[in-house]
């Protein structure tokens, strides 16, 4: 993207075009002939990975926007319709939701790489600042995207984040009203967030072009931090860097697919499967994981305005980094002290992230302040002082020399892995002690749908449906399901005639007819499951003031914390069955006499697993209550398990398709990554 191109077209058509619009020459000089340092390691592939993620987010986002409705009463359901009814809608939604997290993982690696190797130093200051601007835009885009599904966390996240602006003196309230377009977060807010969420990725793409332009003017930094001097120091971008990048992207896709197909809800919050309710705040408001360090900084300052200033300052300080660190040596490889402090800074960020997810009380507040200080001290004290006092190691004469002295790199990698491991153990030790204080969690059951090859047990789903129909449906609705779902593959798989018969048993309100009257008719399979109450007020009135929740998403909307080391293991074992475990335990968790000293309100029942233990629902199931025709024991534990399985299916009807496609995609990507690895090695064999 800089300087005249060396591109010499042979084809007459290309010659003609090149004389009028030198676009092929631009591509050639930017992505083919462009000289790239030959000692770049795999941390440098994250630039390409980020470009790929931006493209994935834009493409999946445009597709999702074709089916999404930005209106407060319809938004939540429209997302569920995408997941349930649109062809491959579940895939596109998982790609987009997990994609946001992957985007941030990649950007954090990319930023830390820049920090470690001093990629922000002269002459790359503008390149770095453009990167910080992209990061800020990403944060704004990610936040507004999270609001769109209009669940509880969407709504309350929007409320809390927009209220940050109320901290500014005099104009704060006016700014917040302006952001909302009303007196509270509401339909105008959702509409403008949708509009801006669609716009900002294209702004990001524009700034990315500037970022790449600036990169190609100054050239890439490299692990040695010395500028290329001769042609021996560089290799052409294609095929060397291209293949390395594609191999990196393919490996990253394996990691990404793990979340898309096996852990789609791991990075999200269960509360966001509850539709937004402006009257009830969830017990713990937690932002998405990628904002947690900044959230921790916000909360650690006891003054509202200063907290907001500190939070924004934590990002804005990055803009001044090129001048805060004036050390002439770029790479931390040759800065023994800076390297240690860098890893300390990484640990600080991770610990702040962990604190951001914890309640703001007791020891967490104290730790939050300590690490907030560490965060700012790194930029404002450590780096300026180090750049003046640190004795740096001798730099290699050239990049070619660096490539020859390769043994040391292995040592550096081993050292960083050791640091990470040590850090993990410390953190693990610290929070196991904490996890022990937690209340007991519901026991984990064996579910047929767990794990990478999980499938629903058809007979169990049919039994679960029977319990729903005979017991649950007297009070609970199942609004996101239609009778047709009962006959669809991957579910209870009733025959079409059975589903029609089940539908016909319900009297569905329809109309108006030609005379203008509403009338009732037998249900059809395209009808939604009939709700026991006409509206929420009626449900509330009939149930002692507590409306029975809709059960469509119950199995995904209920969860419990797993504690520190466990939640990491869960990522590998694909444990996602908190919801069914909770439902199963709740149905069996009633105790006739509450424990000593527990004050049970009138009209409530004591349940061991219900949050707060006082539940308005009387024990719904007893042994022998529902007749099973297939000889399955008619006991409460069996009922609980069957209905929990049924509700899991109701919440995730395409679970089987998801896991099946996941296996195919995983096998494919691993083969592709293997082939790319060998291809890359063959190509690079010439360069070494």
């Amino acid at each position, binding site marked *: 993207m800089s300087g005249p191109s060396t591109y010499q077209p042979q084809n007459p058509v290309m010659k003609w075009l090149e004389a009028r619009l030198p676009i092929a020459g631009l591509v050639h000089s930017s992505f083919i002939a462009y000289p790239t340092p030959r000692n770049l390691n795999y941390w440098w592939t994250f630039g390409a990975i980020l470009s790929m993620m931006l493209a994935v987010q834009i493409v999946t986002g445009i597709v999702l926007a074709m089916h999404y409705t930005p209106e407060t009463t319809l938004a939540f359901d429209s997302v569920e319709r995408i997941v349930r009814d*649109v062809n*491959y*809608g579940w895939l596109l939604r998982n790609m987009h939701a997990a994609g946001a997290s992957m985007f941030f993982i990649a950007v954090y690696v990319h930023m830390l790489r820049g920090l470690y190797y001093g990629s922000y130093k002269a002459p790359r200051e503008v390149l770095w600042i453009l990167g910080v601007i992209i990061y800020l835009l990403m944060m704004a885009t990610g936040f507004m995207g999270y609001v769109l599904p209009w669940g509880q966390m969407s709504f309350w996240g929007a409320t809390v984040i927009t209220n940050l602006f109320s901290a500014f003196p005099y104009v704060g309230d006016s700014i917040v009203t302006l952001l909302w377009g009303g007196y509270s977060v509401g339909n105008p807010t959702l509409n403008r967030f949708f509009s801006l969420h669609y716009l900002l990725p294209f702004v990001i793409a524009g700034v990315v072009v500037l970022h790449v332009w600036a990169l190609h003017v100054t050239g890439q930094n490299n692990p040695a931090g010395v500028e290329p001097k001769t042609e021996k120091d560089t290799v052409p971008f294609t095929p060397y860097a291209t293949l390395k990048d594609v191999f990196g992207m393919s490996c990253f896709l394996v990691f990404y697919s793990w979340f898309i197909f096996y852990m789609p809800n791991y990075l999200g919050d269960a509360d966001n499967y509850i539709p937004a309710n402006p009257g009830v705040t969830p017990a713990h408001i937690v932002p998405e994981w990628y904002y947690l360090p900044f959230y921790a900084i916000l909360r650690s300052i006891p003054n509202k305005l200063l907290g907001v200033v500190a939070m924004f300052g934590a990002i804005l300080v990055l803009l001044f980094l090129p001048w805060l660190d004036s050390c002439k040596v770029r790479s931390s490889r040759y800065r023994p002290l800076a390297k240690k402090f860098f890893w300390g800074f990484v640990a600080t960020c991770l610990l702040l992230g962990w604190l951001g997810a914890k309640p703001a009380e007791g020891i967490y507040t104290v730790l939050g302040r300590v690490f907030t200080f560490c965060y700012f001290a790194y930029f404002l004290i450590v780096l300026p002082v180090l750049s003046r006092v640190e004795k740096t190691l001798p730099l290699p004469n050239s990049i070619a020399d660096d490539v020859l002295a390769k043994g040391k790199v292995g040592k550096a990698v081993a050292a960083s892995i050791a640091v990470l491991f040590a850090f993990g153990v410390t953190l693990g030790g610290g929070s196991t002690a904490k996890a022990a204080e937690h209340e007991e969690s519901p026991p984990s059951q064996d579910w047929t749908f767990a794990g990478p090859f999980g499938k629903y047990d058809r007979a169990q789903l049919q039994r679960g449906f029977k319990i729903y129909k005979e017991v649950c449906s007297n009070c609970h609705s199942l609004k996101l399901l239609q009778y*047709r779902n009962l006959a669809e593959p991957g579910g209870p798989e009733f025959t079409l005639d059975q589903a029609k018969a089940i539908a016909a048993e319900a009297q569905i309100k329809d109309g108006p007819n030609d005379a203008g009257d509403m009338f009732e008719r037998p249900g059809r399979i395209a009808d939604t499951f009939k709700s026991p109450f006409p509206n929420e007020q009626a449900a509330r009135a009939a149930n002692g003031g507590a409306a029975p929740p809709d059960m469509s998403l119950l199995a995904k909307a209920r969860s419990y914390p797993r504690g520190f080391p466990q939640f990491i293991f869960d990522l590998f074992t694909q444990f996602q069955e908190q919801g069914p475990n909770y439902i199963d335990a709740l149905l069996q968790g009633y105790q006739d006499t509450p424990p000593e000293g527990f004050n049970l309100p009138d009209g409530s029942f004591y349940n061991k697993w219900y949050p707060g233990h006082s539940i308005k629902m009387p024990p719904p199931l007893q042994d022998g209550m529902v007749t099973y025709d297939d000889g399955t024991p008619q006991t409460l534990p069996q009922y609980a398990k069957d209905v929990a399985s049924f509700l899991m299916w109701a919440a995730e009807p395409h679970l089987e398709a998801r896991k099946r496609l996941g296996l195919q995609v995983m096998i*494919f990507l691993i083969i592709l990554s293997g*082939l*790319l690895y060998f291809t890359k090695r063959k190509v690079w064999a010439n360069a070494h």
Partner: protein
Amino acid sequence: MKGLGIVTTQSSAEPTRRDFLYIATGAVAAVGAAAAVWPFVSQMNPDASTIAAGAPIEVDLTPIAQGQDIKVFWRGKPIYIMNRTPKQVEEAVKTPLSDLKDPETDQARTKAGHENWLVVTGICTHLGCIPIAHEGNYDGFFCPCHGSQYDSSGRIRQGPAPLNLPVPPYQFVSDSKIQIG
């Protein structure tokens, strides 16, 4: 691809084995890219709820007097149900096929025993406007957009439209009730 691999290893020339690796990698990547496009195309097709909502509907014919018609919607398309007068039926039956642009007998477009009932999709086969019933020169339908004229059997007689108004799938469930779809 397997066969190709065997051939190249037998020739045991280093450059060809390398070429094979490049071709295999490229081919696998291309297959993956092509497969990844499919969900993005498929999502444009009607979703499951739209398909389910396109189930057959029943229409009561009793309120439609002779010489009158009603318009009902099935799968988002208007369906004309016309109770034809004996004169209209006679005209439709007597028209020689040689006069027709898209030859089709009236019998083929109605149900035996219910010849007075004409059920057609009310969408002009020219460019999709809705023809007006009981207008035009043929006692049938007239499309105001570009002047196509259909007769009392919904067959194209004049104007730019190429085909007759299509007859949707339907059947009589009783003498006074039809099921469309």
